């Protein structure tokens, strides 16, 4: 039981962080950023030295954790801001479909750039090995990593909330996310806010990369994509642009996945994700605006 709860929370953490990264950018730019998954992949690959050998040549992965964590977060933030400056800035006034496809194309470029440097074979890496020890809580044996994942996610969420609530920059970002042109008329600098959102979103991608990398022990080009799909869905279910909604929906999706894994009959288990997607469609039917809808009248993170 406790194990299930922790599974749900740690899977939900990944989805929630992913959804948050997408919602942040959507909020200020109305861009559904398909390149986000590839930013995650980039952060994971940044741990290795570029080579197409099957053996992973660990590079940043060897750093002690207090250097490793900022390094990966910075990688994500840096790449994400670069994407904004080089690509998305040109699409500020484009329609959402064009922006989506442009982000798709950008993701494609990042992915093949990584493939070119590292080849497509998944490589194994032992990241922060100390974390895979199981620990005992209330009689249940849980991987320490799971616990850290959950704690780290909570810390990130609280940190982000404080940042958005207590700082000048956070205030401007929330205002811009709600009504961009009004915020600009009040002197809020569009470029700064958008770059800030991209930097935060990229850092979140770095956090996912660290968590996912140490959970799976592999570096794989596909890993971003699998989280992304669920993260997108979470963003929409949460009510696009609503940060609180995105987080909540991320955890809900994680819980739904884990619960179905346990509750479905054995024969149906491989189809778990199909049920989750079906549930998503149902939710959208009843709440097309998402669970936390009505921008502006509801509380956000």
């Amino acid at each position: 039981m406790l194990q299930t709860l922790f599974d749900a929370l740690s899977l939900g953490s990944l989805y929630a962080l992913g959804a948050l990264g997408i919602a942040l950018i959507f909020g200020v730019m109305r861009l559904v950023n398909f390149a986000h998954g590839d930013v995650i992949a980039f952060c994971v690959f940044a741990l290795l030295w570029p080579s197409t050998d099957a053996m992973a040549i660990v590079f940043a992965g060897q750093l002690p954790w207090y250097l490793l964590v900022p390094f990966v977060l910075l990688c994500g933030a840096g790449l994400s801001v670069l994407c904004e400056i080089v690509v998305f800035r040109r699409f500020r006034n484009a329609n959402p479909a064009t922006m989506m496809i442009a982000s798709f194309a950008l993701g494609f470029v990042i992915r093949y750039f990584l493939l070119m440097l590292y080849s497509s074979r998944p490589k194994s890496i032992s990241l922060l090995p100390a974390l895979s020890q199981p620990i005992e809580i209330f009689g249940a044996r849980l991987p320490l990593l799971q616990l850290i994942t959950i704690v780290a996610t909570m810390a990130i969420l609280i940190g982000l909330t404080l940042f958005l609530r207590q700082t000048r920059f956070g205030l401007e970002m929330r205002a811009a996310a709600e009504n961009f042109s009004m915020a600009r008329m009040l002197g809020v600098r569009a470029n700064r806010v958008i770059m800030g959102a991209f930097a935060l979103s990229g850092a979140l991608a770095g956090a996912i990369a660290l968590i996912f990398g140490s959970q799976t022990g592999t570096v794989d080009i596909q890993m971003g994509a699998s989280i992304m799909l669920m993260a997108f869905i979470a963003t929409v279910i949460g009510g696009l642009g609503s940060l609180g909604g995105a987080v909540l929906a991320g955890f809900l999706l994680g819980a739904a996945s884990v619960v179905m894994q346990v509750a479905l009959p054995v024969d149906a288990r491989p189809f778990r994700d199909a049920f989750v997607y079906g549930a998503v469609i149902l939710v959208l039917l009843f709440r097309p605006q998402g669970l936390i809808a009505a921008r502006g009248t509801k509380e956000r993170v």
Partner: protein
Amino acid sequence: MSLLALSDITIRYSRLTAVREVSFSMTEGEILFITGPNGAGKSSLLRAIAGVTPVAAGKIQLAGQDITGQAPENIARLGLSMVPEGREVFGSLTIEENLLVGTGMQARDRTSRARTASDLEAVYMTFPILKDRRNGQAGLLSGGQQQMLVIGRALMTNPRLIAIDEPSLGLAPNITDQVYERLIALQAQRQLTLLIVEQSSARAMMVGGRMILMRGGQIVLDGDARTLGSGEAIQAAYFGYEDH
């Protein structure tokens, strides 16, 4: 020297021309009312000044600088504070946060911080309801209360020029009076320049100052509010001749 100068401003929405070759200028400390029937192009003109609607032709100068095509935030930083049509409050932010969004432009020194604090107090004095609910969500305010909030928010940025699109919209008459009292006091104290769009000329006649009447995207009358407002000419200009 004029604070704001428009020359031959034309604004188009795809095929429709909303404003056609409009020119006027305002000196520091002036009060200018723009009136006119629905669809005259008043709001379009204001949005163009603020930089949110592109102009098709013409030039806008603010404080001696050419601001045509400039980003709205840069125009705001030159001292324009805009209250657009339709109360654009940040609904998910608290009332106090709404008031503070526009104060980021100012220097982070002690004097400007003190001014921000006293501005906030002044806004709360004018609109006590905002003070009572300062930590409440702005989206939950009533329409008229939201109107108070956006006007208060515009006063917080320490502007040289305030442009307000229909301040009386949705406000009870006595609140409207208070809003105007406060605006005029500021105008007197700080040499604030006021550009106000109103549907009717009645308010302009009460307050005085200059009045421009727009119709069909053009200026049809320009003169002293009190003399213009009482004449027959305004009726004719307002409704147009062909409408009868």
